[in-house]
């Protein structure tokens, strides 16, 4: 699946849902199915400060692709993390950097859940891009 397909797929998922209660139920379901976050990664370095909920994120660079693992103490935030990982984890730095989070507008997340400091997801998105930039620089150095 390309990064564009991953983005379209999540938009489709949400288009099939009814009102916000149904959407939240789906987000909660995604949160529950998020793989367990390794306790070793729950460090201060991996913590993203949100105003209301705590978010942790770890990243790996393997075979040219960036992989993210993340967790939160709030279930809805976990669900939103699951969405972010679906659309950004497992892609190359270039793919990540050239794909803005437009799906958020399309599924209405940005209206209903201000992805600002409230839930730390805005900060997480920024962090995803920063890791992509850092891994890209690393890869460029290794190739030159």
């Amino acid at each position: 699946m390309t990064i564009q397909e991953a983005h379209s797929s999540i938009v489709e998922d949400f288009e099939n849902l009814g009102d916000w209660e149904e959407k939240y139920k789906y987000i909660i379901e995604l949160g529950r199915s998020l793989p367990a976050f390794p306790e070793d990664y729950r460090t201060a370095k991996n913590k993203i400060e949100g105003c209301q909920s705590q978010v942790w994120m770890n990243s790996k660079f393997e075979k040219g692709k960036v992989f993210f693992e993340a967790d939160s103490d709030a279930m809805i935030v976990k669900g939103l993390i699951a969405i972010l990982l679906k659309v950004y984890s497992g892609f190359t730095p270039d793919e990540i950097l050239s794909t803005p989070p437009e799906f958020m507008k399309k599924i209405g997340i940005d209206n209903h859940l201000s992805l600002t400091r409230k839930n730390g997801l805005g900060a997480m998105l920024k962090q995803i891009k920063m890791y992509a930039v850092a891994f890209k620089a690393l890869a460029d150095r290794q190739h030159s």
Partner: protein
Amino acid sequence: MSFTETKSLLKIAKQGKRVFDVLKIRDDFPILHRTVNGKPLVYLDNAATTQKPKAVIDSITNYYTYENANIHRGLHFLSEVATEAFEGARLIVKEFINAMSASEIVFVKGATEAINLIANTMCRSDIFKSGDEIIISQMEHHANIVPWQINFQKKNIKLKVIPITDEGELDLDAYRNLFTERTKLVSIVHTSNSLGTVNPIKEIIEIAHKEGVQVLVDGSQAVPHRKVDVQDLDCDYFVFSGHKLFGPTGIGVLYGKTKYLEKLPPYQGGGDMIRTVSFEKSTFDDIPHKFEAGTPNIEGGIALGVAINYLNEFNFGDITSHEQSLLDYATSELLKINGLRIIGTSPNKASVISFVIDGIHPYDIGTIIDTDGIALRTGHHCTQPIMQRYNLPATARASFAFYNTLEEVDKLIAGLNKVIKMFS
């Protein structure tokens, strides 16, 4: 809209009081009739900010439509009118908290600026010397912690902290033991915004005064709920925000006893606070204008006066007792919910209830219940030391004003039961 003379809105009412009828009161607040997510708004975030009665909203439009001018400067008609309105509002505030004189009322942006003003001017004067101490408590809002820390950087001054009990009350024995010969000030919250606790403020002030120490009271959460008399309390400074008292944002009050305000240096420099200015030296105006540099928030001051006059239509005792019944009913209904725990269980509380539910993060509670049009606050409520005290990342908080109803408590309970079902 038709023209109303602002000064007529700011006359101190002498007529009889309104009968307390919550449905009629709700009609005075336009926003309470809107829907959110297709449901009638249930606004339970009054400790963050209160809604505004139509009289307050209209007074701002009226002022700008008919009476706008800069104050204290012009000789022209409108300047006189605007000055009279702004100073009329000061008089209303003075009566509201029973200050000795209107010159003891300084208009500021809010409680936060009021505390910053005191912290800044005290630290710049010789009131604080290196090694001095001030006493605050573990239940302070960040606005009564951070201004001291910022201003203390220049001088080596220590913050000493009154601990709180499991119930969320101040440990008064510990408080008595915090005084030393270096204690210069007690800066303390009247009513806690996250626990709801109403502190025995008069006793706290008496204890400090016996030690010869001045007291600043953060009354932001007190004034919307009960009558405050600064002379009866004998506090030396009292601060509150207008927007928590049904007035607009960006206006608040610093009360200080004349003898103390006169000794403090100016806070900011600029127009309206000076007597003479030359490049060698400037001299400053008397209180309160010494602390009000620049053009103030004129419409904010006026609208705050109008908000207070609106409250003056009621017996304050009626407001307090209606809120007490909301608090009692909500407390008993909330405690029927399995796994729900109230943080702050003092018998002396304002209508503010912080709670947590086992296994459900407050963020999740707040997000889901919002889909039912119910506005709760979740988070640390700008009181991180309280969260640390109870070892919690956050709480959910319902805070009631006198326009809330018992039916809205029922909606809150139904909303929470739905949240629990979704996460079970």
